[in-house]
């Protein structure tokens, strides 16, 4: 099976693209593709643990990132993206924190890269 890296670049609300990147990854993982999901740029906002969009009548994407091991998807966050946005590591879901250099290596080793 192919190795797929998904770059998720958009914030978790405002648009549904962050959630739909996850949904695509979930479907691919279900089809036994190896999926590495990378929250990068504004995508890292998705990893904030305590999201509560009930007043917007939406579902919290944080629930999936908080429980990502349930989904057979590996979750990665870009360290620079977190720091540029003044986020604390403690307020974020548990995930692998990587540098751009490590991202470059993952892209090198991937068969396919999807960007959302």
């Amino acid at each position, binding site marked *: 099976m192919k190795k797929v890296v998904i770059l998720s670049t958009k914030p978790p*609300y405002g648009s549904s693209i962050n959630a739909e990147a996850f949904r695509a990854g979930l479907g691919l993982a279900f089809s036994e593709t190896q999926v590495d999901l990378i929250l990068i740029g504004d995508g890292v*906002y998705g990893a904030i643990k305590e999201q509560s969009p009930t007043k917007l009548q939406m579902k919290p994407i944080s629930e999936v990132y908080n429980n990502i091991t349930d989904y057979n998807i590996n979750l990665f966050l870009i360290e620079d993206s977190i720091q540029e*946005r003044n986020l604390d590591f403690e307020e974020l879901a548990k995930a692998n924190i990587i540098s751009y250099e490590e991202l470059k290596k993952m892209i090198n080793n991937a068969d396919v890269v999807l960007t959302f």
Partner: protein
Amino acid sequence: MRALFLFSRTPNQENIRFLKKLIDSSDCVVFIQNGVYIAKHNIELECQNYVLEPDAEARGIKINSNSVDYIRLVDLIMEFDKVVTI
């Protein structure tokens, strides 16, 4: 003429610089949608400014003060002379 600015995009250096060029002390800024991430940055604006609470809560962004709900935002919309979205 006092304007209410609705700031709806993820704040970055460029769009904050743009905002600062357009406002003066009699205006008002409300950060809505992805604009609420402004609370993570230390930005001083020369006019009153607020964050839309349901949008901040959705995103897990804590607001100590200066938050408004939809009802209060409608009040502000009527209180100022016009609305400018950026």
